[in-house]
């Protein structure tokens, strides 16, 4: 009996090997985004916005028109694009520094205005690109380059729960938090990503945001396998998975 190929690279994911660390969640999330674009057949209508962060070179991996923008500004740039070209599918791909720190005002207001964008927010609780500094989403007691004694609530504040913050806004159309820590979790994440893009295809109102809990083995100082366990055991209680809106 001949073998049937049942899993392969989606066409929108370019062949270039990535610069991401072994076990980095970005590789999985890029693939899910590419699969969603291919499943929905929207490659030629899609414009993506790459962040500043480890995923700054996302345009080398995703074969759609892409714009590289200043740190945190993706939702504002996306607003500019979507407002002049409402028939295009516009998505932002951002990390936790980009979206929750320097870009806090931009994501808040894009959501507040109900811009019909798709935002993929990759939360790995640390700043990878710049060497492992604390992020707004770093958890309490997490040791990072800028919280060497461990994060303390009375000094650095609590980890920021972006999905909860944005879900309360009327302009948020769909908010879900997912993880990539297991095959089952990846499947759920895939469904969420597809839905987030599909809502824009169907012109459903409001901003769609998927927060993806993602591993950073390098700056969590763990093996990839340990990182997935840490994600499940330590991040999930702080950032509960599930659909918060829509």
């Amino acid at each position: 009996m001949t073998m049937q190929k049942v899993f392969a690279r989606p066409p929108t994911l370019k062949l270039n090997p990535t610069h991401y660390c072994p076990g980095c969640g970005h590789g999985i999330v890029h693939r899910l985004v590419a699969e969603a674009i291919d499943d929905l057949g929207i490659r030629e209508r899609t414009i993506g916005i790459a962040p500043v962060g480890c995923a700054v070179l996302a345009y080398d991996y995703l074969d759609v028109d892409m714009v590289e923008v200043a740190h945190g500004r993706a939702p504002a740039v996306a607003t500019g694009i979507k407002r002049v070209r409402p028939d295009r599918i516009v998505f932002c791909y951002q990390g936790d520094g980009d979206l929750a720190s320097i870009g806090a005002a931009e994501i808040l207001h894009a959501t507040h205005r109900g811009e019909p964008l798709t935002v993929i927010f990759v939360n790995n609780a640390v700043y990878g690109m710049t060497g492992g500094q604390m992020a707004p989403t770093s958890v309490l007691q997490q040791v990072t380059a800028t919280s060497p004694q461990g994060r303390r609530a009375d000094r650095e504040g609590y980890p920021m729960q972006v999905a909860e913050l944005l879900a309360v806004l009327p302009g948020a159309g769909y908010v879900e938090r997912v993880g990539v820590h297991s095959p089952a979790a990846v499947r759920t994440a895939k469904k969420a990503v597809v839905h987030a893009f599909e809502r824009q295809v169907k012109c459903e109102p409001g901003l769609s945001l998927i927060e993806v809990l993602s591993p950073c083995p390098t700056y969590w100082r763990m093996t990839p396998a340990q990182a997935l366990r840490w994600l499940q055991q330590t991040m999930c209680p702080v950032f509960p998975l599930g659909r918060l809106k829509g």
Partner: protein
Amino acid sequence: MNEPTDRVLMTGNEALAEAAIRAGLEAYFGYPITPQNELTGYLAAHLPPLGRVFVQSESELAAINMVFGASATGARTMTTSSSPGISLMQEGLSYLAGAELPAVVANIMRGGPGLGNIQPSQADYFQATRGGGHGDYRLIVLAPATVQETADLTMTAFDLADRYRMTVMILSDGVLGQMMEPVRFREYHRPELPPKDWAVTGAQGRPQNIVRTLWLAEGMLEQRNQLLQAKYRRVEANEVRVEAGQIEDADYVIVAYGLMARAARAAVHRLRAGGVKAGWIRPISLWPFPSEIIGRVAQQPRVFLTVEMSCGQMVQDVRLAVGGQCPVLFYGRAGGGIPTVDEIVGQVEKLALPAGGPR
């Protein structure tokens, strides 16, 4: 809508807005700040009925990034602000320059530094012409002196932005923006411009387009900079705009732009009536700066007096252009102060020697 009009009475800010609409402005993003709120108000009222985009952004920082996005798709887009807001836009201006995206930005200058006041100023000359944001880049900077010129230069700005893939900054001020003068809108004709095949519109039937400013590979960013510099040399060769009067025999040449150019002309008129041989040079493009005419005029013995609503910024470019051939003096008022015609006349009369001219 594009019909030429008879003379209408309008503020400088409104004229700028109307001219932008006639030049095909598709998307405006802006944040309220005095003294340019007439712009946001006018565009909020007039753009949506035309099916065009108006967004009040959450900040000037967001506005310039929305401009970045709209421009990346190939649309004609603009933002406006005043000095403190323009400071916030510097990052965006650097990114626009690096990505070679066309845009029009207007700065209706006010007193600074810091929150300053809401009176007029010309103290953003350095910020506009020296970059302001990081990296080796330039903006085309145009300085109207009347409401009519504000309208005309705004239409020109969009064409220049598209032709050179640059940001064109219109430098106005709190008085020029809010004063009312008669203005006639000409019929706008879009010139022949290069196609925007670099725009991100969805990669249909073509490879992906990437709008970017990061170039990590060895030597790439230097190459990019050389490309930009070559472009800036072309702009310098082709887009100098300047006006001058009574300079041929002038012993005293007043160099001023925008609002100050009006005072300078009036001062020259009075000085001549009093027997002093004065002339004026009015840069209209502040970048590229009209160095050539100033250098030529400086070949004869004269005294240059630069008049600005600042502590002395354009005077440095005048000094560079004069190249040591003649004395270059400065008179200015800061923080919203406006040099009067009397004061300027007084400055020149102080210098005026008995018959025989300056030594």
